[in-house]
């Protein structure tokens, strides 16, 4: 078969496009942008549901839409566009014909079929709301998995077309020796893609067979482990691809040359070697894998990859600076930056991408990838906060920028609405920055990800956020204030943004930053804030006979009781309630800032005394469990009044300071 050697030269840029490559780049990019549009509409629905005041969708619809959002964005939009980037970097930048265009088209159509099939499973069949992670044993319809598999196979074909193009270019001598840096970045992405897609096949094919009944079970830990070799590594394809786009942007806009090819390429090599194994950060909270495996694969490897990202994040602006200074923008430290084309969406998108990815995405990624911190924030809203900073602010923004460049080049058209195009990167970038930051904030306060209802209404088990949580539900906030204190002095703005009141801040002065983090973890198990479901939880306890109707049970204890409904704790509750009545309020709740403010106290002793620490509490509980308990309804005649013993102070104390109440003396064995 004759090889198509038709090239077209772009009149404005001088780039030479091989005809099939030209068409393939356009089609892949356009389908990608359609997926982005679909995903964007779904994003709106997701966000309007998670915004508690609006709470748009019903739970079923929410999880369905969230599944579609994750897949259309993270998988379909990004990978379609990346295939376009590969063909551009392989063929156009090397002046080389695209190898095997038929294979490339076959891959493209497989991807399209896979994309449609997967969306069919999610939105038409509506029985596959398993999120993009699709953790087994949660099962979706077989078309869901088959769609993903077809898509992955198509993308794999695309990668090999790219590799073959490099080989063709070498043998036809369209480049000598080293490929250009942008192509090298694309090569990095393609290499990571091969590992990624192979891992995807390893896990998705058995899962597909399981969905049609040919495989009996899928081990859930094994699924998670191998899935993330696919799910996370694909994010690293994004990173490599968007870094390549950064370099391309610097070259296109400023004619900038990389500051050091050696350093930049070595940084890409670090990606190739180490970035994929950082997938292990998704399993940091899983049992069954050792810390050795976790730490080597995350911290050690991850830091090398992070080093590489920092190199790129500095050399790209550095290269721009050099190019600008050569043009004479030499005044002061920053004239080169001030005189950059801020009105050009190609530049502004890429610049926002560099800053956003580096500062927000990168830093939060290092935080989440640290085993000890991950345990606090795993599966909270912090996680989507982090990856929207990387994958939206970083990757999507960069791809948007290069799209602004490619539209005139590929379609030979003027950009419509140039004024809108000028603003779009700023609006999108600013929005995403704020959005990511606040998701992270909510996450540190314990707001879970993937949850239809932050308030957990209807749950048997009450869930209470720390007091300065993101109180996005205004009425809830009002009711809470009215109930708790008989007055409402939280300014609306504070309530909305979750800013602690001044008194709260004062109360926390001695123990600011570190303690806040700790508390974010501890508080999940019962902070002090009443919420909408407090009554329901209480009613359930009463119904089950654990508490008498009139008793007031402290929040933390209620959670414990509800957790352990099978444990006979009736008397414990009664006694604790008694004790609480006897204790002055300020002692019970050292953090009750209202009281503190009244007493002029700001200094809250927060240190754990050794006897009051965790270990001893467990022992206390054991001892208590072992002791004779002539309980069951009614006061025990002769038995020791359990609740009066200081050893139970832990349970009666303010549970949002995990160290227990600060009043009284530390419990000693045998004390009453």
């Amino acid at each position: 078969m004759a090889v198509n050697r038709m090239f077209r030269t772009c009149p404005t840029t001088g780039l030479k496009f091989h005809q099939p490559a030209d068409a393939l780049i356009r089609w892949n990019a356009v389908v990608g942008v359609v997926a982005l549009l679909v995903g964007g509409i779904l994003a709106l629905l997701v966000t309007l549901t998670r915004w508690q005041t609006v709470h748009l969708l019903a739970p079923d619809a929410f999880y369905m839409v969230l599944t579609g959002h994750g897949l259309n964005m993270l998988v379909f939009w990004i990978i379609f566009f990346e295939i376009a980037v590969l063909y551009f970097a392989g063929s156009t930048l090397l002046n080389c014909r695209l190898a095997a265009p038929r294979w490339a088209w076959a891959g493209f159509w497989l991807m399209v079929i896979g994309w449609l099939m997967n969306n069919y499973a999610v939105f038409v069949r509506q029985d596959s709301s398993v999120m993009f992670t699709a953790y087994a044993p949660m099962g979706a319809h077989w078309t869901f998995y088959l769609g993903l598999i077809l898509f992955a196979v198509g993308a794999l074909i695309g990668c090999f077309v790219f590799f073959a193009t490099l080989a063709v270019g070498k043998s036809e001598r369209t480049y000598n020796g080293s490929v250009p840096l942008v192509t090298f970045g694309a090569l990095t992405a393609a290499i990571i893609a091969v590992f990624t897609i192979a891992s995807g096949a390893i896990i998705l094919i058995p899962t597909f067979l399981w969905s049609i009944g040919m495989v009996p079970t899928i081990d859930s830990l094994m699924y998670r482990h191998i899935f993330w070799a696919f799910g996370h590594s694909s994010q690293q394809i994004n990173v490599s691809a968007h870094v390549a786009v950064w370099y391309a942007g610097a070259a296109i806009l400023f004619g900038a040359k990389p500051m050091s090819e050696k350093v930049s390429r070595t940084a890409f090599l670090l990606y190739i070697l180490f970035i994929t194994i950082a997938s292990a950060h998704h399993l940091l909270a899983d049992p069954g894998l050792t810390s050795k495996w976790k730490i080597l694969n995350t911290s050690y490897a991850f830091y090398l990859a992070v080093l590489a990202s920092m190199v790129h994040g500095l050399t790209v602006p550095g290269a721009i600076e050099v190019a600008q200074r050569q043009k004479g923008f030499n005044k002061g430290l920053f004239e080169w930056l001030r005189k950059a084309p801020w009105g050009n969406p190609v530049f502004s998108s890429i610049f926002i991408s560099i800053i956003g990815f580096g500062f927000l995405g990168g830093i939060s990624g290092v935080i989440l990838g640290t085993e000890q911190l991950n345990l606090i924030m795993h599966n909270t809203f912090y996680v989507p906060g982090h990856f929207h900073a990387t994958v939206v602010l970083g990757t999507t923004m960069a791809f948007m920028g290069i799209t602004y460049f490619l539209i005139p080049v590929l379609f030979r058209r003027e950009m419509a609405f140039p004024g809108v195009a000028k603003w779009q990167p700023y609006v999108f970038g600013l929005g995403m920055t704020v959005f990511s930051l606040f998701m992270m904030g909510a996450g540190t306060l314990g707001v879970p990800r993937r949850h239809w209802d932050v308030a957990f209404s209807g749950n048997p088990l009450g869930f209470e956020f720390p007091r300065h949580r993101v109180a996005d539900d205004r009425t809830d906030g009002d009711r809470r204030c009215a109930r708790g204190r008989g007055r409402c002095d939280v300014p609306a703005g504070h309530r909305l943004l979750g800013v602690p009141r001044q008194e709260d801040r004062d109360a926390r002065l001695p123990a600011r930053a570190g303690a806040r983090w700790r508390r974010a973890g501890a508080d999940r198990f019962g902070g002090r804030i009443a919420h909408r479901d407090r009554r329901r939880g209480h009613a359930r306890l009463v119904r089950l006979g654990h508490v008498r109707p009139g008793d007031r049970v402290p929040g933390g204890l209620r959670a414990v009781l509800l957790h352990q409904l099978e444990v006979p704790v009736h008397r414990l509750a009664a006694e604790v309630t008694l004790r609480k009545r006897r204790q002055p309020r300020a002692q019970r709740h050292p953090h009750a800032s209202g009281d503190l403010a009244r007493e002029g106290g700001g200094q809250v002793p927060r240190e754990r005394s050794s006897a009051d620490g965790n270990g001893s509490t467990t022992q206390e509980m054991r001892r208590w469990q072992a002791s004779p308990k002539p309980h069951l309804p009614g006061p025990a005649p002769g038995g020791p009044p359990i609740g009066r013993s200081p050893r139970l102070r832990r349970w009666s104390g303010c549970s949002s300071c995990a160290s227990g109440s600060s009043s009284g003396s530390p419990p000693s064995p045998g004390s009453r």
Partner: protein
Amino acid sequence: MAEKNQPLAYEEIPEEPEPFMQQLLDNPWMLLFLGVVVPTVLYLIWGVMEIVSVPIAP
């Protein structure tokens, strides 16, 4: 060899072997091999070994 302060004429530059790193970075197949093997060993195989060594509950 030419004197220190006299630049070499083009033909006189001795053929240096390509540095190792450059050879590596210019070899996409080698990079592909490394990029697949390293995570396969460190992440996949090691991880699977650890998971299968966890006893299954009866």
